[in-house]
């Protein structure tokens, strides 16, 4: 088989598998383009609450959705903390709905929240990320 043809077939096959995988397990949309990995907390009652939150944003708050797609490439369900528990003992008792780590493209959401709450949190975090990157320009 022609080498170029072989490379082309492999490339197309990988692209199709990749898009299929992303569309199944992550958030992937072409118009407007958006590709965000989703890592949900194991055992949540509300399955795919992050994916639902992104779909909700896409319908109801396109500006925040656009920002989320621009500034995040991964959204995880994980508890956030912004101090060391060795110094501030009560740091883990504070419940944050989510957080953004400066300089990264990751957003974190509190596990077990509803899609509506996650949409609201993501909206706030995406604006936080935008403000951070704008402040650096």
């Amino acid at each position, binding site marked *: 088989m*022609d*080498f*170029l043809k072989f*490379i082309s077939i492999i490339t197309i096959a990988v692209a199709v598998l990749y898009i299929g995988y992303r569309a199944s397990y992550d958030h992937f949309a072409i118009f407007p383009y958006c590709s965000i990995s989703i*890592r949900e907390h194991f055992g949540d009652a509300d399955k795919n609450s992050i994916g639902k939150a992104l779909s909700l944003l896409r319908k109801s708050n396109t500006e925040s959705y656009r920002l989320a797609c621009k500034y995040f490439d991964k959204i*995880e369900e*994980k*508890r*956030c*903390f*912004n*101090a*060391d528990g*060795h*110094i*501030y003992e009560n740091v883990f008792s504070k419940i*944050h*709905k*989510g*957080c*953004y*780590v*400066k*300089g*990264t493209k*990751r957003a*974190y959401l509190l596990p077990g929240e509803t899609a509506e709450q996650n949409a609201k*949190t993501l909206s*706030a*975090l995406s604006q*936080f990320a935008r403000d*951070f990157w704008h402040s*650096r320009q």
Partner: protein
Amino acid sequence: MQQNFGYFGRQVVILPHILRLDSGWTVNVKALIGDGITKVIYPLHTFKISNIIGYDTMNITGKKIVKLIVAVSVGVWIFSYFVYYDFETSCFIKLKPGLMSFVEFNHSNIKEGLQALKYGTPDVYAGVCSNIDTIESDYGCGGWQGGCHYGEEGRITLSTTHSEFVGWTAAIIGHEYCHDLQLREGRSFSEEECYSFDSQILQTIVGVYPN
């Protein structure tokens, strides 16, 4: 010959390009262009497609270049697992995986932690880049999801996982860097100082909602 091929237009032929015909003849497209034909498409609409049994899109040199690009790309991809590099700030740190960390593949988390330091706490990042040569990664150093400094200047160990909260990974890098500074400056090992140091990093780089 010009009448046979004509001017069709979807694909511009990249030279050199040879069309092979079932008659056994080969047609040099470059020569055709020399005859005044500037565009030839494949498949050819008016030229009998059954007459073409194949065509070479690349010469041997072209194939070698494609293979070289593929090999270099794979090489860079593998190499990047073992090195953190930031050309913008000339920061190069070796990432040395322990036996178990090959299972975890957590270097992407470490790299993101360094990026968080770069943008969130540039001073700490500059200090890490100029003082830390090697970051080792492995399971269970100093407990889970922590770090260690074994008293060797410029070398720290992290035991964060691939799915670790990246703010915490950045804080641990800062914590171990703090111990490295203590060693370099001849001061005694103080955990309190370094807990305070990593806590400041967390407060600076992590933006929580609601505040």
